[in-house]
Each structure stands twice: as C-alpha cells, then as structure tokens.
C-alpha cells in the first residue's frame, strides 16, 4: 500500500518537473521570444512600470501601437513601487533589464552614471516626433546626465490643495482660490477646526507637505551648489509656519503614509495637500468624490507647487534598440502624449497635451494641477536623494512631535543632509 503512494507521488513529481522545465507562460525563457505560437517574426519588448492604475491606459496605447506596428509586441510588466527597484537592480546587475522602463528622479543618476541606460541624445535630435523643447525644462533636465539625454519625459504631477466643500459651506467660507495666501489658509483652518474635525492636515511628509511651503516662502531644500537648504532662515520660517498648525491644534499629528489619505476619507480633516497621482484613488472613493474638490496652493512671497515627472528609458543592452526607440518615440510624441492624457493615465508633459487630461476627469477641478506647473518647483533631488530624505525625516521628526524646536531640528537636518551630499 505504501509502495503505491510512493509511486504515485514520484509519477506526479516527474510530470510536474517536465511541465516546469518546458513551460514558461507567455514569455518563455529569456526576454525576447515569440508570443505563443506566432510564426511571424515579432520583436517582443518588455515594458516595465510600477503603477497598475496607469497600466490599464498604457495597455490600450500599447495595443494601438502594436496595430500600427505589427512587427512588434509590447509586453507590459507591472511591479509594485518598492519591488520595482529591486527588480530593476537585479536586472541591471545580471544584464537582463527590461527593454523599456520608467525612470524616476531618485534613481536616474545611478542608472545613467553606470551606463545602464541607452544614450538617446542622437536619436532625439534626429527625431521629428520628439521635441525636448516642448517639455517642462525641469523634467528634461532630470533625465539629462553629463550632457546626454537618457530618458524621454513622460508626465508631470503637481501638488494641490484638497478641501471639503461641505464643511466650507457649513462654515459659510468661500472656497480656496488662486488668491489665497498663507493667512487665508490659516484663518480658514481655524474656523473649520471644531467638533472633532481639524481644519488642515499638516502631515509629516515632504513632497505632499512642507516642501511646498518652503518654496512659497522663498526658501529651498537644496541649493544650486548642492548644499542643504534646511538651515536657510526662509526655510526654517516656512517649517515653523507649517508646524504651527499642529502646535495650535489645527492639525492632527499624522506621520504615516496611509493615514494621510485616511484622514480625508474619515472626515478627520477639512483640507490637505495631495499630489495629482491620487486622482484615481480619490475618484473611486465615494466620500472624497462627493465632498471634496481641489484648488491651487496658497501663495506667500512666491507661488510654488512641487512637481516631478517620470521618464521613459531604454536599457543600454537591449537587443532591439531601434524597435525600443520606435516605441519610446511614440510615447514621447505629441500624438502619444495626447493619447496618454485622453485616457486619463497621467498629466502628459508635452506642451498643450495636458488639456486633454483635464477633460478625462469631471469630478474635480483638476485644471489646477496643470495651471501650477507654470510655477512648479522640481522635487529636490541629488545622487543620494534616498539617503538624505530619510535622514532629514529622522532629524525633523522631533520637531513635529514637539520635543525640540523647529529651528534646532532644521539645523540638524541640514547637517546630516550635507554629510550625505558631501559623499557625492
């Protein structure tokens, strides 16, 4: 009886192993292969990204591209943000990067300086479809390393002021508009803080938080000669204004990423800063879509909204540089950018195409996101961004919890950040 068990088990095992070694889903072994059963010579390109929301729209675009280019097959691979970079790094180390993939300001330096990306400069110059002057220069510059262009800009995102219309109505306040100043923000927050609701969410977050205020006050996070701007008096002033909301009881103390959006949904806060990428999530949430709208950020001595943009990069060792370029060229062309905007995938970076994006969402006043790019400030970055952003958080945290003064925390942040910058 026992023998039969064993034999059965071994047979099953054998069958599975045979299946394992021969199968391989659609991709087969390696990166370039025919799409199951296709006898025509199609080039398959691996296209990697990290946002499954955008993937839906991009799949539509990929399908359209494949129709126009029947010799090509685009295979989209979605990986979550954290794992995306581990995946990419493993690929880079082993020599098997995806053919086309998203690039971000945090990582561009590492990949470009190590020669992991294909130099696109010549191709761009020769191309009639991709015109770098049509993109916000800040974004173009991110993906330019030592004079060579390594990625084509894809989109941009800005930070907006989200506010609860119902609460404003109840308090008889007029909605935030482009004339709002810091004082308006503060006063409104004061009026709205009551009955367990806080007027404003001064969350412990940089891009969707105090960075904006820093630049609105004329301060900076990183200077042109790569020194920390945290000890700039204007920066400290802005930080103090920001933390004041917490100190004066107008803002809850929120530190975690997930808790910030929850604060909006749960009706805990009446206003908060959130980036345009939250749009699909907010639209899907009944509470937010019914009660909230978005406005431009208030101004102080300056207007500012932190903006950033992704780029499309090609692997330096892709087997199909020409094909990959054809695809990227399409994505970065006016046509591709318009399509991206139409489908509501992201705010296309190509001049004028963002208008199409605005009409893709009728729930909120999303026009404001596009308006703000005129005075947008590129999200501060350098070679070791990941390091000093974390270190700065660690240094500033005690200021938010009230253990030390904002000034002291800011000086600490500056010191640690400079240490990191010095190693670059």
């Amino acid at each position, binding site marked *: 009886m026992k023998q039969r068990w064993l034999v059965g088990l071994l047979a099953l095992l054998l069958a*599975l192993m045979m299946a394992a070694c021969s*199968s391989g*889903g659609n*991709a087969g072994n390696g990166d370039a292969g025919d799409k199951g059963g296709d006898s025509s010579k199609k080039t398959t390109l691996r296209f990697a990204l990290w946002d*499954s929301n955008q993937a839906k729209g991009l799949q539509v675009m990929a399908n359209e591209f494949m129709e126009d280019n029947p010799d090509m097959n685009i295979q989209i691979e979605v990986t979550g943000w954290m794992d995306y970079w581990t995946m990419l790094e*493993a690929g880079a180390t082993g020599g098997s990067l995806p053919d086309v993939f998203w690039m971000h300001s945090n990582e561009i330096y590492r990949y470009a300086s190590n020669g992991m990306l294909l130099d696109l400069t010549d191709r761009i110059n020769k191309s009639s479809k991709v015109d770098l002057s049509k993109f916000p220069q800040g974004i173009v510059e991110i993906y330019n390393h030592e004079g060579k262009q390594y990625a084509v800009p894809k989109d941009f995102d800005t930070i907006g002021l989200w506010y609860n219309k119902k609460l404003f109505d109840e308090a008889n306040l007029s909605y935030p508009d482009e004339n709002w100043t810091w004082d308006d923000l503060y006063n409104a927050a004061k009026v709205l803080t009551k009955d367990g609701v806080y007027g404003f969410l001064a969350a412990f977050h940089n891009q969707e938080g105090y960075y904006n205020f820093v630049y609105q006050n004329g301060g900076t996070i990183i200077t042109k000669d790569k020194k920390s701007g945290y000890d700039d008096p204007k920066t400290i002033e802005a930080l103090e204004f920001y933390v004041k909301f917490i100190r004066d009881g107008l803002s809850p103390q929120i530190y975690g990423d997930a808790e910030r959006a929850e604060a909006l949904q*749960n009706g805990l806060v009446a206003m908060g800063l959130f980036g345009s990428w939250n749009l699909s999530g907010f639209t899907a*949430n009944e509470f937010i879509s019914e009660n909230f709208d978005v406005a431009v950020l208030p101004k102080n001595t300056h207007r500012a909204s932190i903006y950033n943009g992704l780029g499309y990069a090609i692997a330096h060792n892709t087997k199909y540089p020409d094909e990959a370029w054809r695809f990227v060229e399409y994505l970065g062309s006016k046509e591709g950018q318009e399509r991206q905007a139409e489908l509501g995938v992201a705010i296309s970076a190509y001049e004028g195409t963002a208008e199409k994006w605005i009409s893709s969402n009728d729930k909120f006043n999303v026009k404001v996101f596009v308006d703000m790019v005129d005075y947008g400030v590129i999200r501060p970055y350098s070679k070791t961004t990941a390091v000093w952003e974390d270190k700065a958080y660690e240094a500033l945290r005690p200021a938010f919890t009230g253990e030390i003064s904002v000034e002291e925390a800011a000086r600490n942040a500056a010191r640690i950040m400079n240490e990191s910058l010095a190693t670059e």
Partner: protein
Amino acid sequence: MSYKPMVSRILIHVFLISGACTMILPFVWMVLTSFKTVAESTSMNPFVWLPSEWKWEHYINVWRQNNFLILYVNTFAMMAIRVILGVLFSAMAAYAFARLRFPGRSFFFGLVLFQMMVPTQIFIIPQYLMVDALNMRNTIFALVFPGLVSAFGTFLLRQFFLVLPKELEEAAKLDGCNIGQTFLLVMLPLTRSGLVALGIFTALFAFKELMWPLIVNTSADAATLSSALAKIQSAYSVHYPELMTAAVLAIWPMMLVYFLFQRQFIEGISTSGGKL
C-alpha cells in the same frame, strides 16, 4: 465531584473559543469587507461590520482584471514540487544526521543551522542571478528553485528521528534491509506527524513568498498569488474592498488544502496511539 470534569471542560472551551475569536477576527473582517463599498470599508466612525448591501461586483472585477486561473496553477505547481522534493530531501538528510555516524556530521549539521540564522533577503539577488544565468526566468522552475532544500525541515525531522528507539534499525538489519531500505520503509513512516507538519509548512512558506516570484517571474502569467496580491496593493492603495477581495481569492485555496491535510493529522493520532 462529578461537577469537576464538567466545569473544567467548560473552562477549556471558553479559553479555546476566546483564543479562536482573536485569531479569526481579522479574517472575518477581511471577508466581510470584500462585499462593502469603499466608504464603508474605511469608515471607523461609525465602525462598519456588515455591509449594508452585499456587493458581489468586486469579485467579478478583481477576477477579471487578474488572471487568477493562471495564478492558481502557477502557485500550486510551485507548492507541489517544493513540498514533495523538500520533504523528501529533508527527511533523507534528517535521518542521516540523527541516526548515522559519519565524518563531517557535526560540521554539515552546523551548516544547516547556519543557514537558518541569516535573514532571507540576502539570498534574493544572488539567487536571481543564478536563475538568470541558467536562462530560466519566467518558468515554474524559477519559482521552485530556492525552496528545494530546507534547513528548517531537516532540523525538524531530525528531532523526530532522534526519538525513535535504536532497536528498530537493528531489527531491520536482521531482516536484511540495507540502510536505504531501513530509512524508506521502516523509519520514515514512523515520523508521519512530523512529515505532515513539515509538508504543511513547506506549502505555506512557498505560498507566502512574495519577493522571489516578483523579481524572477515578471510577466503576469508566471506570477504567483501572493506577489499578484502585492502588485494589486499598490494599485488599489485606497480601495480596501477590492484589496480584500483579492486577498480572499488568494488565500481560499490554501485554506482548503490545509483543511484537507489537517484531517491526515488526526489520523496520525489514532495510529501513533497504537504504536509500540
């Protein structure tokens, strides 16, 4: 006097039930949430247990958007291979470490323990590079690769083998068995409960491994359930009902398998009761 056993039985059940409640609470919420609206799922003020309407659409949506059939197939294939091979290899080594004497025994067992002491994250990239070099990315082989051998399993089964009486081997020898036969036919069956426990754990760890399949099998078709769940997370970052739906769809096969194998467990009691 006759009340005493009754009272103690009731107390035991009270204890077990309250423990069970704490264990199961998160899952009850999880399953219920898969039927709620987004607002209901995040509303804690007031806090919502039962959905006002049973929305089945999440299941339809999530099922359609993620090719769960292929996910199930890949995950189970990965699990089956790992369980069979893993348990077999561990049992072989465990037997040798426990009952045989040979040079290098302490050293190699030390290696086994050594492997357990290191955080698994350091294995990811080197193992990825190995699979890449063999050109086996995006295959089931890649998913199975790291789980073929188990230090944990070897250590566990060694403990079980150590407990068995020495006379058994001598008796087997007298019957004309060589060491291999002794192992396979005599000793192995006696560690049945250990084998089943190990089988359950191997299946479990294989199922839950997120990172590995994510990097190595990047096409959605070759992905596994847990990693597909991880990808879904970043998309539906605020959409709890769909997230919970995906989670339920991801774990129910595992629960079924566990429940089935767990029966085997009980039989283990009745047989070992009559042992020796």
